[in-house]
């Protein structure tokens, strides 16, 4: 089905990809989770920006976080990494890496884990690199910091890593500054940096959004190949459903701070349970089909976190809303492998 969708909507450069979409529909959600987030609530003062979010990722698995701008994807990632900055803070919930509860660690211990066991890749690769430091050195720094080796030998390994992420002439490129490299090249550097210490989890926050379509496809393919080699768990944030189709094993759809639906990628594309997920799918087809048939797009906008409606936050935009929706729907199992936070899951109208 995924492949069918890809062909149907003609996703960018999918045809040019050297790597086949290898989504295993039989894959069960997370056998032994590498990273488990439970009941995570993040906010400022009285406003909650991420509410009661829970999910897990297993080794070698890719979980995609999707949702419109402002729904809390980045904050969820930052909270998982322990990188939230004032005034935003974690209000409750747990983040477990293997058996370690990260939220109870002090900054010193957390620092040892960041970059070694968990790495993060950001949206704007050029701005995410130090403009006045050579890129090789920036990759090597992770090794210097975590493995206590000297910069000289770290540099040798950095060059190897740059070669591994598909940078030609890594010896020379290691001496380049970020502004001398293209965005795609910088993102490869970021990936090399993330991989340096063989992390158990990679959090990629819109890692391909800022790149052009061809480069985006190359970077996605690279990340998948590397993931297959290393067995790293991956959280991949995007609002591009064609990217989801490309790399996700499982998907968590967020709306206004909450996860509203989660499940295996095929199931979600095949029979979305939540009206919002259905809307997203429709939008995607609507936006991408040349004929532009009358498919229901989602009207309205996401409510501001400080002014959410009572009950289900999607209610003002939901075609299916009823009186009962004034009560917040819980995330409940649906159709075996899926879960949806809706009083009327799966029932289109």
């Amino acid at each position, binding site marked *: 089905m995924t492949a069918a969708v890809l062909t149907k909507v003609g996703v960018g450069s999918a045809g040019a990809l050297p790597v086949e979409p290898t989504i295993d529909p039989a894959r069960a959600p997370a056998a032994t989770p590498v990273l488990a987030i439970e009941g995570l609530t993040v906010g400022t003062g009285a406003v909650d920006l991420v509410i009661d979010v829970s999910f897990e990722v297993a080794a070698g698995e890719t979980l995609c976080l999707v949702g419109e701008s402002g729904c809390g994807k980045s904050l969820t990632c930052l909270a998982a*990494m322990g*990188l939230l900055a004032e005034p935003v803070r974690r209000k409750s919930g747990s983040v477990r890496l293997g058996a370690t509860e990260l939220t109870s660690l002090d900054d010193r211990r957390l*620092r*040892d*884990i*960041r*970059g*070694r066991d968990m*790495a*993060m890749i*950001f949206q*704007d690769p050029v*701005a*995410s*690199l*130090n*403009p*006045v*430091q050579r890129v090789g050195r920036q990759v090597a*720094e*992770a090794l210097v*910091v*975590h493995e206590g080796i000297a910069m000289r030998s770290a540099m040798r390994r950095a060059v190897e890593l740059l070669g591994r992420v598909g940078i030609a002439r890594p010896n*020379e*490129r290691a001496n*380049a*500054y970020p*502004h*001398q*490299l*293209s965005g*795609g*090249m910088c993102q490869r550097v*970021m990936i090399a*940096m993330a991989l340096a210490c063989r992390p158990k989890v990679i959090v990629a926050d819109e890692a391909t959004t800022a790149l052009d379509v061809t480069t985006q496809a190359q970077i996605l393919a690279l990340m998948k190949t590397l993931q297959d080699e290393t067995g790293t768990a991956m959280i991949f944030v995007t609002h591009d459903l064609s990217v989801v189709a490309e790399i996700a094993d499982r998907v968590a759809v967020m709306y206004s701070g909450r996860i509203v639906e989660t499940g295996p990628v095929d199931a979600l594309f095949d029979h979305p349970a939540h009206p919002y997920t259905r809307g997203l799918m429709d939008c995607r087809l609507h936006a991408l089909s040349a004929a532009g048939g009358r498919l229901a797009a989602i009207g309205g906008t996401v409510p501001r976190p400080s002014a959410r409606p009572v009950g289900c936050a999607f209610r003002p935009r939901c075609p299916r809303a009823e009186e009962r929706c004034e009560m917040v729907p819980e995330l409940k199992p649906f159709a075996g492998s899926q879960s949806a936070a809706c009083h009327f899951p799966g029932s289109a109208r």
Partner: protein
Amino acid sequence: MSLRFILGKLLRAFLTLLLAVTFVFIVLRMSGDPVSQMLPDDTPASVVAAYRQMWGLDRPLPEQYARYVAGILHGDFGFSFRDNRPALDVVLERVPLSLELGLTALALTIVLGIGGGILAALKRGTSVDHATMAFTIMGHSMPNFFLGILLILAFAMTWRILPSSGTGSWRHLVMPAVTLGTSYAATVARFTRSSLLEVLHQPFMRTARAKGVPFRRRILGHALPNAGIPIVTVVGLRLGALIGAAVVVEPVFAWPGVGQLLVSAVAFRDLAIVQTIVLLIAFTMVVVNFLVDLTYGWLDPRIGMVSGEAAA
């Protein structure tokens, strides 16, 4: 940094100097006939003409200009009629004392200004930050000479722990250096604070945190090298103001440097001295600017690179 970048900056420095020399020449010629200014009013016309011929003032202007520039290139900055010696000698004698004062003030500025700025940025919103900012506002708004007089009143007149004027020991240096350095340090501290705060919010600082880089290494290895560019700019730019302030501060403390010489030379209409000092200041500024440009190129690889290299 490419050679072309350096050569370009050198050429600019040279042109700036030539402009300064030309400017001084024009001002000197416009300020009246030096012969008639120097000689008593009842000097016979033939004597005036003889002087004019001796100093080449009867030649056409372009020739005078060429001679003037050639003279300067040979180190001939004119004759101080007050000291009856070459003006350059008189001025150069005073340079070491001014340098001593200027460099002490500069060192004070760098240590207090940059150090205070960094501290304020890292402790943003705390009492350390507020105290530093209060100091910078005071240092910024108080005129140099006024601060000098206050210091003299307090440390020389009331408590009698520091000499109010003259040279000879480090104790003589304290008040003039503090007076000269305070407003400079205040400016540098404000700049350091704001540019560091800006850098701390850049995405690459978050990357360093996500990489697990310890705090000290993040500040020293990532934040400061990036914040350094505006800091070097302000230090370089304000050096001109420091030189200007020296002219005011030296006489207040009877510090016998170039600044004091300039003030007295103006009072005596000793034009040769005045033009020598003006050109010396211009020269210093040009050299400083050149060094600042080179420092940029060194701090920021985006400047002075051959562009279009290694696009991928």
